[in-house]
């Protein structure tokens, strides 16, 4: 959550950020390639969940990954790490 100031007088001395989901906004919009999970190939090893640098992958009840496209920047690390190639990077369309 960002408490956006309206005018200069509202600013704190220095920017202070409380722990919050996506304080820089919807960073998923930066993405060029989108990771897509083929759940039939997925072995639920959770490596993608471990390696995701943005914590944009959650581990579901059955240990399969769920990608949060609001914050996934499309770096491709999950696809690179997946040992069974169950994640592929697909170009975002307009």
């Amino acid at each position, binding site marked *: 959550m960002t408490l956006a*100031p309206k005018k*200069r007088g509202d*600013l*704190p*001395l*220095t*920017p*202070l*950020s*409380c*722990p919050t989901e996506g*304080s*820089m906004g919807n960073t998923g919009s930066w993405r060029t390639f989108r990771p897509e999970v083929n759940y039939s190939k997925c072995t639920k090893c959770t490596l993608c969940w471990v390696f995701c640098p943005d914590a944009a992958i959650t581990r579901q009840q059955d240990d399969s990954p769920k990608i949060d496209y609001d914050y996934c920047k499309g770096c491709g690390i999950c696809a690179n790490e997946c040992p069974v190639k169950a994640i592929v990077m697909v170009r975002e369309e307009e």
Partner: protein
Amino acid sequence: MVQRVVDTANHLAGYAAKAAGVKVVAAYPITPQTTIVEKIADFVESGEMDAEYIRVESEHSAMVACIGAAAAGVRTFTATSSHGLALMHEALHWASGSRLPIVMAVVNRAMGAPWSIWPDMSDSLSQRDTGWIQFYCAGNQEVFDTILQAYKLCEDERVFLPAMVCLEGFILSHTYAPAEIPDQAKVDAFLPAYKSGWVLDVNKPYSHANLVSPEWYMEFRYLIQEAMENAKRLIPQIDKEYAERFGHAYGGLIEKYRCDDADLVLLAMGTIGSDAKLAVDKLRKEGLKVGSARVRVYRPFPVEEIVKLAASSRMLVTLDRHISFGMEGFLGSEVKASLYGQQDRPLFSGFIAGLGGRDVTAETIEKVAKRSLKMLDAGRVEKETEWVDLRE
């Protein structure tokens, strides 16, 4: 009770940190600063000072530790010189941008290469644009007093910026002179307990100084500029209050000496500014109308004071213990920049002197004044920057 001592400016800086009730000191030794933090280490070890003394692996770490401590809400102090200050450079921006009122003694020492341990102001003046307030001292007592004044200023809610208290290596740092350590109760009355502008709190966690988009970055810079302007207003007030309480006054931003009817005013920072008084007295005896003005605060720069001096004199002369390669000394540049908007500007000449610890005596200053008076008589300046006592 006032404690009278005969001690070095470095030890007095240590006494000042103790009197200010500093709670965290993080420092790395470097000549000629080392005896400041040695003195503090003694105080902490003996229990005379209730502070955390953090030994770190570099000056960069020293500053970062001070930032962390100040952000946790305690008064912090450090000291450095020369290459140590240069190594801190990146962290200096984090301290000012986070608006943390850290006070640091900078014992001025020339930059290498070639290696030098002797004084000039190229170390601290290179940090001009880091958002730190900069004081320059001319005596041991002033070092002690200015550290207390710096805390008072920096912790004011209209300022919340860090400050460097600069003193020239060896000329002050290792030279013994009489000084007074005021009664602790009186210091406490002058300098109330530190109350930070914001504080880290584990129960209400947040991070600070994070990414700011172009939409708001400029405004945060403007807030620092405003704080500097506020500091410029507050420094003379604090100097006055200090004088009322402790009997020592330094003229606020600028210490003027026999300037009122002076044709020519010599401007300098640090000890050259105090030696200039001796030169002025001698020249006055010869009937020459010369005064001196010691610029005590370099950031914020006392533009208005310079304008006043220009209005009442016919020539301004700067003596810089500094050179900005490819231009001139910073003091010279900024004195001139302060005057551009004025209709009738006095003549100006700038002198580079005392680099790397070359002696600048009253006789040297007298020579500079006489050379400048010749230019004033001729009504023009041949060369805007001259190097004093440069070997052929």
